[in-house]
Structures are given as C-alpha cells and as structure tokens.
C-alpha cells in the first residue's frame, strides 16, 4: 500500500513539475506571443458563441446550406483539413522510411500539424451535422455497413491514436537528446510509416470514395476521385509544412531546416501538384469530350459562375508547380509564395469540388441554385482554425522540439 502511495506521489510531483515548466515556458514566451494567444482566444469565443447559436438557439437554418446545397463551408473545410492531416504524415515517412535525417527538426511539428488538422476536420464534421450528440453513437450503436461514412468515421480514432503514439515516441526520443533506445527508434519508425499508409489508404482515399459513390452527382461520380484525394492531400500537407517552417523560422529568427531540405520539399510539392494536374486535365477533358449532359453542365458552371475559383484552382496549382521546377523558385521567398499559392488553390479546388458539384439542379426547372456562407458559419470556421492554431502555438512551446538545423 505504501509503495502505491509512493508511486502516486512521484507521478503527481512529476506532473506538477511538467505543468509548472509548461506554464513557465508560456509565460516566458514574450508579449507578442501572449497578444496572439489572446486574439486567438477571442476568435475561439466568437466561433463557440456562433456554434451555440446555430445548434441550440436559432437553428441550423441560420447557415447558408439548403435542401438544394446540403453541404456547405464546413464540408469544404472538413475535406481540406482531413487532407492536410494525411499529407503532413509524409514528413514522418521522409525521416523514418527514407532515412532523411535533415527532415528530423520537422518530425514533432509535422505530427502536431497532422493531429490538429484531424481535430479541425472532426470539429467541422461535428459542426455540420444536425444532431451532433446523436452522431456520437456512430459507429458503435448506430451503423449501416453499406455507408462509407461509417468507415470514414471509424478511421479518425485509429489515425488519432497512431499520431498520438508517434508523438509520444518523438517527444521521448527528443528528451533523450535525439538518440532513443533501440525499441523507441523502431517504434517511432514503424509508427511513422504506418501513420502515412493509414492516412492515405484508410483515411483519405475512402473520403474520395465517399463522394465518388454518389451517382446522383456528376462531378463526384468518377473513379479518379479517391486517387485524386490522395495526391491533393499530399500536396496540401507539404504546402502547409513548408509554410509553417518558413514562418516559424522568420518569427524565431532560427533556421528550422536547411535551405536544401526546404528545396527538396518544394520538389516534392511540385511532383504531387503535377500528378494532381495530370488527373485534373484528363478528368475535365473526358467531361467535355464525352458531352454527357451532367458533365457539360458542370463544365458550364465551372467556366461561368465559378470561373474565379476554377482559375484560382487550376492556374494556381499550375503556376506553383512551374515556379517550383526552377531553382530560383525554390529559394525561401519562392517557396513561401509557391506554398501560399498552393494552399489557396487547394482551398479553391475544395470549394469547387463540394459546392459546384451541388449547384447544377437535378431537374431542369428548379431554378438558379446558389450557396453563400453566412457570418455565423464563417465565425465557426474562424473559431475552429483559431483553436487549432492556438493549440499548435502552445504545444510547440510546451513540448520539446527537435534541435533545429545547426548549419553545415
């Protein structure tokens, strides 16, 4: 009994120490950091109040969605973040699968980006459903084996568990000065490889299938979609990691990874953008060439009412890819611009994919369908993004990060 008490006291004391040092590291972070956290807290409160208004006071009707466009901004953001979470796992594969030691300073950051993106995606999904508490019964109490949504909802817990285990070993190894025990290193390696495979094959490709199965919607009903989801996920994950790495380096005035590593990331981004554009080109070509009414209608909307999103998506991706093919495009400034353009063009792609697919009326004569997100909807989106940014900033301060690049 006394031994149990001793162990309990020891654990409590170590938790207290951890808590105190975490608080101290946030306290010591400086005024600008505190101001940013305060702004994020205000945005989170705005989002939470808006969500409570939608869910419990005024009704889901104060969002812009309708019976004609049932899925709106939340699903756009959901697909973007679930893709980013999958793509960020690529960093783990580079370190552990391909033995690229130069990527190591990004290890913990990439796991955090992946985990927090998944958290954002799940929060967007929860914000979207009409009955979020009942949705908690999925898939244990309520489940339909023919629905892809059951399987995708089952994957989040598995992916989160994989990433948290990965985080545990990454932190442990960093605390041991970058050299973990044999088993720690093995676990970190296999978890990283497993997480990427799980992210792409079990989480993200089935999300593409979730849309591709719907024969009612011409734009989604293509077998290319699951593969397309995977390449876009990898592109968005790398773009977000490049963006975060460069921004962090600018703010902390410390290089996180070498210029060569960043340039390599740029090359990877160009490759995945290229594959995505290749699939896009043939998808649109078949749509136009075959002349099926549904396909022509989608083409009509993409090139008229939604031309700005379409150009932002296709030209954005194309210009970022071309930019990154040249050496001068893979300088720090070039990479910052290319990754920013990529993120914006992928957001435009997600908007086109989710919204434009629902705009053509399923019967002629329904009229002109539109979707515009409302202020409360945008507030919830801002709140969720603020929450994950807040958590990222705090966790990167509190958790031990790998040693940054020391120079050649």
């Amino acid at each position: 009994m006394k031994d149990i008490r001793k162990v309990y006291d020891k654990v409590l004391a170590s938790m207290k120490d951890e808590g105190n040092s975490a608080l101290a590291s946030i306290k010591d972070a400086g005024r600008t950091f505190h101001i940013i956290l305060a702004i994020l807290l205000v945005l989170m409160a705005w989002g939470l109040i808006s969500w409570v208004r939608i869910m419990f006071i005024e009704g889901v009707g104060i969002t812009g969605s309708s019976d004609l466009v049932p899925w709106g901004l939340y699903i756009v953001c959901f697909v973007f973040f679930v893709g980013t979470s999958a793509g960020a796992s690529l960093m783990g594969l580079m370190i552990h699968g391909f033995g690229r030691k130069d990527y190591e300073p990004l290890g913990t950051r990439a796991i955090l980006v992946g985990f927090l993106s998944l958290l954002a995606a799940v929060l967007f999904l929860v914000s979207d459903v009409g009955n979020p508490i009942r949705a908690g019964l999925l898939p244990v109490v309520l489940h339909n084996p023919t629905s892809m949504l059951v399987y995708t909802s089952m994957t989040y817990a598995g992916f989160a568990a994989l990433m948290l285990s990965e985080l545990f070993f990454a932190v442990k190894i960093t605390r041991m000065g970058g050299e973990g025990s044999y088993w720690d290193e093995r676990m970190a390696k296999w978890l990283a490889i497993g997480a990427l495979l799980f992210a792409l094959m079990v989480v993200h490709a089935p999300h593409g299938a979730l849309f591709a199965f719907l024969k009612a919607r011409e734009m989604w009903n293509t077998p290319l979609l699951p593969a397309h989801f995977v390449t876009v996920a990898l592109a968005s994950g790398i773009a977000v990691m490049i963006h975060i790495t460069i921004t962090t380096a600018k703010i902390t005035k410390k290089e996180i990874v070498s210029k060569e590593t960043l340039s390599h990331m740029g090359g990877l981004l160009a490759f995945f953008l290229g594959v995505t554009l290749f699939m896009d080109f043939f998808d649109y070509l078949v749509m136009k060439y075959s002349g099926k009414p549904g396909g022509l209608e989608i083409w009509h909307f993409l090139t008229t009412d939604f031309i700005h999103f379409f150009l932002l998506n296709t030209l954005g991706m194309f210009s970022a890819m071309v930019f990154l093919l040249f050496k001068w495009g893979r300088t720090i400034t070039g990479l910052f611009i290319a990754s920013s353009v990529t993120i914006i063009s992928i957001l435009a792609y997600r908007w086109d994919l989710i919204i434009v697919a629902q705009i053509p009326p399923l019967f002629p004569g329904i009229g002109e369908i539109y979707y515009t997100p409302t202020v409360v909807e945008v507030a919830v989106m801002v709140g969720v993004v603020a929450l994950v940014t807040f958590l990222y900033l705090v966790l990167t301060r509190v958790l031990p990060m790998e040693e940054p690049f020391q120079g050649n």
Partner: protein
Amino acid sequence: MKKLNRREFVKLAGIAGGYVLWPPKSGLAASEALWSSKLGIVGDIIESATGFNPTKPSGALEPIPGVKFGMVIDLDKCIGCRRCSYACKRENNVPDTISPPYITVFETESVTGISGMYHPTETPGAGTTMMYTKLRKDKWYMPVQCNHCDDAPCVQVCPTGASYKSPDGIVMINYDKCIGCRYCMVACPYQARRFNWFHPEVPHKDRNPLVPMREEGVVEKCTFCVHRTRRGKTTRCVEACPNKARTFGNLNDPNSEVSKLIKSERWWRLKDELNTGCNIYYLTRHSKKNMVWYKPLPPPKNIRGLRS
C-alpha cells in the same frame, strides 16, 4: 420542510419516471425531450437496447406481408393544380419551414423536358419551371417526389441506418436515428429529401395525430402515407387529385390497378439509367385530354438556396 423517507422518494421517482416513459398528455413534452431532441441520446440508447420509444405514434404499423407498394402517375391527366402537394403537406404535418414540400410539380414543354435536357446557352431549366402561376393546356405538368427506389442511394449511404427500405417497398426514415449529416440528401438523384433547418412548428389543432412531428436537425420526405396505406387506405395525394391522375397499389398483386396499368401502357421512370429501381411509374398516353381544369394553388415560397 418535511424530509422524504426512502419509500416516499422511490414512489415519487416512480411517478415522475412513469410520466416520462408513459406520457398521456402532460408527460409528452418531457418524453419528447428524452427521445427526440438534441439530448435524445438517452432515448436512443434505451430504444436500441429495448426497441421502446413512447414518442412514436400508435400509427407506426408493421409492413403488410407480401405487399410492395407503388404508384402510377398519368401525366396526361395531371393538370398541375398542386392539390396533391398541399394535401400531402397537411396530411404529414409538414411545417412551412419545409419548402418546397414533399411533392414538387414541374411545368414542362414536353414530357422529356424534366429528364435532364441540357441547355448550355440558356438559364438552367429554361422551358421548365416549378414556379408557374397559371395553367396552360399546351404544357405538361409533372409531379416529382420520393420514388421509393428498390436500390435507393439514400438507404445505401445513410451512416446510421435511419433511412431504410421496408419490406413493403416504402423507403422510410427513423427520425430518432437520423444524425442530420445530409449524406442521403446529396445522394438522392430526385432531390426528394428535406431537412429541418429550424424547429418545425405546426399548430396542435392542425396536426395529424397519426404522423409524428419531426425535430430540428433531421431529414424527412414522402412516406407513401405509411400511416394510411398500412391500414389499407390509399395515399392522401391520390385522394386529393381531382382528375385521378394518380393510382396507388400493390405491385405484387397482378390484379391491382397499378399492375394492370404498367402492363398495358407504355411507362417510364425518372432517371432509369441510374438503376435505382423507382416504384413511381409515369404514363404519357397522348390521349385527348378530357378533364376538369382547376386554378392552381400557389407555387412554393421562400425556398432556401434558390435565387428568386
């Protein structure tokens, strides 16, 4: 204040619980809260374990064995008066916040106008509209509603099993299982499903006691008037049609009127190329119209997501 002893406390708790679980009148609100509101998780768990749900109306009947319901709509007899649509709305406690109602009626230039003609240079749906206010003898009118498909995409994709195909052919929704994800709505090729964007309000005096009121955040649609048809009656839209354009019946019975119609006439189904197996059949007989022309009821108002 007098303290309750254990016996009195158990007694009081029993009475309170009884009111919630067995609600004659006053307990109804509490029991609705337990089963059908956003906090209805308790009711969901009890129902999934025991099948017990006191908020379900007594009209929730079992499917009739051996029956497969279907409907035939003769477009030659449809004058587009929207009486079916309005009768359905009242019969099924459909609130005003649901717009368009379960049955939408289109005015078209030809009967094929509805099945997906593409006009790249014109406004989508030119020549076809559901907002007409006057009836014209040179036009066709076509009601569209849930087709109760045999291979229903909405049933396939529903993650909770709230949408299901009952043995008598009706695609039903268990409102207590619906999480409001709207996956079924994007999957339905006939835009037949409606979401409760706000808390549905239908005055008590206007409510049909045989049809349950839905809650905010769940999907609903045509049920082939299950509360009537499983009692041997026909659907309300069939009753309301002034020109008998609609025929409802058992497709499994070769002697039923619906079976005879689809044997003897040339029929077609909406978007048949999708292999959904609709159980609503359309007839276009091109016979001389000989029917009563009524003034149409007004078109649906305040349709969310539609530019006026």
